[in-house]
């Protein structure tokens, strides 16, 4: 079993707020900020902590300003599960 966690970094000063990234994010993690960057554009921010690092947003971004990170955390399957005779105590051995 593996758990995938993603994150992105957006160069907000170069963002033009086109929202193409937000529209292609399957996790609906992205939204326009209420704030403006120095060029006067509403920029994109991550509003949810559910990014999977799928890179969709970066693929469609015309400005090429999204960096995507992905980490696969390996969750070890337990080596053994021991239960006592009365069945009221279970011990899981992970490694």
């Amino acid at each position: 079993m593996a758990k995938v966690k993603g994150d992105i970094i957006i160069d907000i000063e170069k963002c033009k707020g086109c929202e193409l990234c937000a529209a292609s994010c399957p996790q609906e993690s992205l939204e326009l900020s209420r704030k403006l960057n120095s060029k006067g554009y509403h920029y994109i921010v991550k509003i949810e902590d559910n990014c999977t690092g799928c890179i969709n947003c970066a693929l469609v971004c015309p400005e090429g300003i999204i960096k995507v990170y992905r980490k696969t955390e390996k969750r070890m399957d337990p080596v053994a599960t021991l239960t006592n005779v009365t069945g009221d105590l279970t011990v899981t051995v992970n490694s």
Partner: protein
Amino acid sequence: MNEKRMLGEDHYEQVIAEESICTNENLVYEKPETLTDTPMHYCPGCGHGVAHRLIAEAIAELDIQDKTVGVAPVGCSVFMYNYMNIDMTEAAHGRASAVATGIKRVLPDKYVFSYQGDGDLAAIGTGETIHTCNRGENILIVFINNGIYGMTGGQMAPTTLVGMKSTTTPYGRDVAVMGNPLKITELIAQLPGVYYCTRVAVNTPANVRRAKKAIVNGFKYQELKKGLSFVEVVSNCPSNWKMTPLESNKWMEENMFPFYPLGDLKVPGKEK
């Protein structure tokens, strides 16, 4: 402007501060180094930016940065050479494929491509386009078809759809007066000099991946010296279509794609 957004912004900063996975070892995507850091001048949501990045990615992937020469057109993408970290030049309106021919013939070991809009390639440059393709020059032509003269303010192009409004067709393109839109890609696909011909788009992640593959193919085929590769990118022009970027992509899917269907027109080894 909802409440979630406010919460979202605060939350975002917290997440970054807590435990960031944004380290080099976890990096899975960033723009290639074959694209400069210069901010592009394109309107928000314009397909030119993605098309540039895909060419840059293809060059990086094939490791041909120092062996590639590009030719920029006249049109919105006239400053393409500022964004591409490769050798590039700029041609007079419509003449990019002729200039690319000259470069390739003098420097046959270089990977040569031209990048041209529909006004450039299919109007003023029709002659150059057809003859370059017919001669089977070993170059790649990337054709950005947004159905309009973008740079000059949205006049009708040969590719403008029937009924489509532009500054020169304010009541929509009328076939009786302006003729039918020109499918130049179908036209040149028949020429024996054309080795590979395909039509792609850059509006969705899946289409972006396909478009990149087509451009990579185009560069790879140059080595075979069997003729010309032609990649049409059906694109948007939110500003002159007078739409938001998202609306323009939807309009493109509903109106441009039926007339300019995506897919291969000519693939080596699969002659129709």
